[in-house]
């Protein structure tokens, strides 16, 4: 196995006196999908948020390419941010409702690349194509898009940053079965094409078994076992 | 549990809260009454006052709509002196005044000046206080000494050194310096005589016990209703009313509506514009009088264009005093000439008000170099427009509209005036800084029935009310000379001369005499207007005849 993209070491989180989780350790290799299974309220989402830096754990280490993001300075971390991205559970709030889909899509490009308008448009279209979006979707406001369409835009938007690692927090639990399949397949396709790694958080074991290389089981605030699904790691 | 889940439970709670609030209001009222009772005050409880109010169908009770809030009944510190003496007729002063402001005996039957600094007052005999005790020189001395202690204004005017009770009915007053107007000051309501029993043991003022035609009965501090009843044993003879209830109604509109609605029998100063309409109502009469107060416009002489006497005269010609008196004051007041009412004995009767003359104003302004060169309707000189500001305040309702009217009239003469209606504090501040041009105010001109006080304060260099900063050697000399003259004729002559000079020089423009509109029900009989009173005076002869 190649050098892990992400390593989580003895991560712990406390709110006041109650422990949400502790002793969370795992690592994800390039091009790998690690499933994180747990019941609702088991702290899976919080782990995901800690990894992308939206919350600060109370203990442990998170290493991205071997660097501890928790001990980084604000500026340094901001540089690293594009590399670790997150897909959220609720599509209805995942895009800025006051910006058209396309603006949402190219926002990260605007922040990070000094691209001119023309090239922005071009790159945006490329990304839209990559995620199977049609122009009619791009000129609408998120309020007029379906959950599946929004998750596609979210994926396109994330891919704009060419991330190494994506935390997907129940990305399909709010979607219909047929759409769920679409999105999961799209994620797999993107993984094949770019070699991105996923941490797929879900309470649906069937889904995890279908798409993950390994599954970590979260119980009572700690990882009890990591199961290898016999799929081999594609690079 | 059932109950709590009921939706009407919410309404119940809300109502309950409101009810608690209301009852708490009531209960605290009771508490107050209890408190008042403890402190020994004879104050009617709220409900008593109400029943009195309802019971005013008693034939000979007058309900009076007073123009100020009734806050205090303390006569010696100046808070309630005017009210208790003039409007409630509970107390009386040593000296009285006639309609022409000459003095007449009051509680003192006569007085004379023994030497430059000594006065002797003979007191009226057989005058008793409402508590039954007789008024002697001791009580008078007690009153005056207390007033001097508590009331700096009166003290500074009286300039008293010592007071001595020579015998029961003779009082000797020594002043620190010569003070020819001393008897006049003793006409001032704040010097009204009260019995020492008005105070409690700890020398706190509790209630006014005077000698007047009406006795203090109660004052409800909460509803602020003052009730006085007939003094059967008044030295002056028969008293017309059995009872008088005084309610403070500070808003002129409300006063008008109250008398129209029959809630009060007598009130003053309804909005001037309403006087004619109310007079036309059956059963209500409006009488308009002049009172010793003038509307005057101070001019800041330190301000360059206003230094010029011609500009000031032009302004005076531009102002249409008669139109203002008729249309702004609705004839509650009159166009003014000098600072004194023509009816006053000492007034310079040869003066007459400036009449509007825009040509004269134009000539004077042109002569002074102010011409409208740029055609914007405002005169200018050396590239500067004739822009002035005019400060005034709204405590007296006639002032703001008068200012607006004058501004428009001055504009016709090519003078631009911006009006600023301000708080007293701000006006004071601006005057301190000298950052003003014109100041319209209403001034009392007979605080003391003598011209010296006003002329000194207004026109002498550094006089306390010399707002314009006027300084004229001749005026100063005349006033200083007149002060020492005890012969009234001679005194007044000097003062007339001063009036003539300032009328010519117009350091302040006297616009109009203040008026007073007495509004009363026709069944109120026997009312006599007293021009020497501050607002109005209730006389003992008033009665009700339905």
């Amino acid at each position, binding site marked *: 196995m190649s050098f892990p993209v992400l390593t989580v070491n003895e991560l712990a989180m406390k709110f006041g006196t109650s422990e949400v989780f502790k002793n969370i350790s795992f690592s994800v290799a390039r091009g790998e999908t690690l499933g994180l299974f747990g019941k609702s309220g088991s702290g899976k989402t919080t782990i995901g948020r800690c990894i992308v830096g939206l919350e600060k754990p109370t203990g442990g280490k998170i290493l991205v390419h071997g660097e501890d993001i928790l001990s980084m300075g604000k500026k340094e971390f901001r540089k690293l941010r594009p590399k670790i991205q997150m897909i959220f559970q609720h599509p209805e709030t995942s895009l800025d409702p006051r910006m058209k889909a396309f603006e949402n899509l190219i926002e990260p490009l605007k922040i990070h690349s000094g691209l001119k308008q023309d090239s922005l448009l071009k790159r945006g279209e490329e990304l839209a194509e990559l995620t199977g979006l049609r122009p009619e979707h791009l000129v609408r406001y998120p309020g007029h898009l379906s959950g599946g369409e929004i998750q596609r835009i979210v994926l396109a938007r994330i891919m704009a940053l060419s991330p190494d690692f994506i935390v997907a927090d129940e990305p399909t639990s709010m979607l219909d079965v047929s759409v769920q399949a679409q999105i999961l397949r799209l994620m797999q396709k993107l993984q094949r094409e770019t070699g991105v790694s996923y941490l797929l958080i879900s309470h649906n074991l069937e889904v995890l078994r279908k798409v993950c290389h390994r599954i970590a089981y979260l119980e009572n605030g700690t990882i009890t076992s990591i199961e290898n699904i016999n799929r081999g790691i594609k690079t | 549990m059932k109950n709590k889940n009921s939706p009407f439970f919410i309404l119940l709670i809300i109502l309950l809260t409101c009810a608690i609030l*209301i009852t708490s209001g009531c209960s605290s009222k009771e508490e107050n009454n209890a408190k008042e009772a403890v402190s020994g005050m004879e104050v009617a409880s709220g409900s008593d006052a109400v029943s009195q109010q309802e019971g005013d169908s008693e034939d000979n009770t007058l309900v009076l709509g007073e123009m100020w809030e009734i806050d205090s009944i303390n006569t010696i510190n100046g808070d309630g002196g005017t009210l208790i003496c003039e409007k409630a007729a509970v107390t009386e002063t040593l000296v009285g005044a006639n309609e022409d402001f000459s003095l007449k005996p009051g509680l003192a039957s006569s007085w004379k000046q023994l030497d430059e600094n000594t006065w002797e007052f003979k007191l009226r005999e057989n005058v008793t206080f409402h508590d039954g005790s007789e008024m002697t020189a001791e009580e008078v001395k007690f009153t005056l000494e207390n007033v001097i202690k508590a009331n700096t204004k009166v003290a500074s005017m009286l300039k008293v050194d010592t007071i001595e009770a020579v015998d029961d009915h003779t009082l000797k007053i020594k002043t620190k310096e010569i003070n020819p107007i001393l008897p006049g000051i003793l006409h001032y309501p704040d010097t009204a005589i009260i019995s020492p029993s008005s105070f409690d043991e700890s020398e706190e003022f509790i209630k006014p016990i005077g000698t007047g035609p009406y006795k203090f009965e109660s004052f409800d501090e909460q509803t602020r209703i003052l009730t006085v009843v007939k003094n059967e044993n008044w030295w002056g003879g028969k008293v017309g009313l059995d009872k008088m209830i005084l309610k403070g109604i500070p808003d002129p509109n409300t006063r008008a*509506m109250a008398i129209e609605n029959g809630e009060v029998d007598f009130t003053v100063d309804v909005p001037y514009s309403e006087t004619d309409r109310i007079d036309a109502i059956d059963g209500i009469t409006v009488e308009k009088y002049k009172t010793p107060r003038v509307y005057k416009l101070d001019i800041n002489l330190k301000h360059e264009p206003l230094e010029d006497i011609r500009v000031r005269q032009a302004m005076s010609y531009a102002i249409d005093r008669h139109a203002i008196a008729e249309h702004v004051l609705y004839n509650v007041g009159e166009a003014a000439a000098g600072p004194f009412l023509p009816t006053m004995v000492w007034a310079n009767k040869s003066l007459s008000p400036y009449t509007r003359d825009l040509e004269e104003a134009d000539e004077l302004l042109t002569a002074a170099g102010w011409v409208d060169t740029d055609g914007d309707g405002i005169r200018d000189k050396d590239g500067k427009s004739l822009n002035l500001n005019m400060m005034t305040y709204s405590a007296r309702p006639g002032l703001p509209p008068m200012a607006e009217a004058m501004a428009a009239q001055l504009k016709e003469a090519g003078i631009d005036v911006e009006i600023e209606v301000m708080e007293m504090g701000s006006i004071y501040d601006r005057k301190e800084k000298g950052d003003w041009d014109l100041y319209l105010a209403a001034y009392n001109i007979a605080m003391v029935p003598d011209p010296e006080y006003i002329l000194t304060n207004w026109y002498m260099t550094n006089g*306390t009310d010399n707002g314009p900063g006027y300084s004229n050697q001749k005026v100063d000399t005349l006033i200083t000379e007149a002060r020492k003259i005890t012969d009234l004729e001679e005194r007044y002559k000097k003062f007339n001369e001063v009036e003539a000079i300032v009328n010519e020089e117009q350091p302040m423009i006297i616009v109009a005499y203040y008026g007073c509109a007495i509004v009363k029900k026709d069944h109120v009989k026997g009312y006599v207007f007293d021009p020497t009173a501050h607002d109005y005076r209730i006389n003992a002869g008033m009665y009700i005849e339905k």
Partner: protein
Amino acid sequence: MKYLIKRAGFMAFTVFAVCALTFFLMNVIPGGTAELILKHTLIGLEESATEEQLSQISSRYNLDDPLYLQFYWWVKEAVLRGDIGTSYIYNKPVLYLLTLRLPATVQLAGASMAIATLAGVSLGIYSALQENRISDHILRIVTLFGVSMPGFWIALILIIIFSLKLKLVQVSGYGNLENLILPAAALSLHSVAAVMRVTRTSMLETLGQEYIRFAKAKGLPVWKIISRHALKNAMLPVVTVIGFQMGNLLGGAVVIEKIFAWPGIGSLLVDSISARDLPMVQGCVLAIVTMFLLVNFIVDILYTHLDPRIRYG
């Protein structure tokens, strides 16, 4: 309990801050305090004061001391002895004057609040149930114009109609219920409309909820659905609005008290401000803010009663 303590502490802080604000605000007002005290007490509004009189007043009320010291003393006296000063103008303890005036304002505001609540809530419910029918439209248009008219204008019109034309009530006065009717009606008008609108909206919103549908599916009759299921839920935002209306009522009371010569705190405050009677202003502000905070505190407690989902510590 913990919540209550926190809440009380916060209220104390707010009261303190408001007092401090008032104190320093009043002291930056141009014009000498001493001069104005003199004008309002001894020498008369239009006369000038002498230097001697000014310095006498200044030393009597410690006006020459630095502001922070003056404030410190005020706070110290207030906290230690419950003495919030003596009015310059009335020459009496502020607390005493407040106890004289407070009941009037409490009565006025309380009555107005009662009217606003009763009328507002019932009209709001009626309007919601008649949604988009003629009576609903009329009610909403009437209240819209009602809120859009300046309060004092309404008050004057009410006086003209009810006192002068119909001769139903007295123009001014204080003491009995009859006198309370017009001022309370005039004062509450804006609040009635506000409460009505919130009730209507909230009622409509509640009626669209799933549990109302379920109640219908249970076969409950309409009146029960409304009285049991809708009303209590719809009341939640209304209760908050009623609390806030207290602020409007207290503010509006200033004007209404002036017009009706109602001896309350509002008119006292206005007079005290222009007379620069600082201790009196402080006292009035203290009373008004405390009243406002207390009412909102009660509203909060009420809210927790109404909504079992909220439980404070």
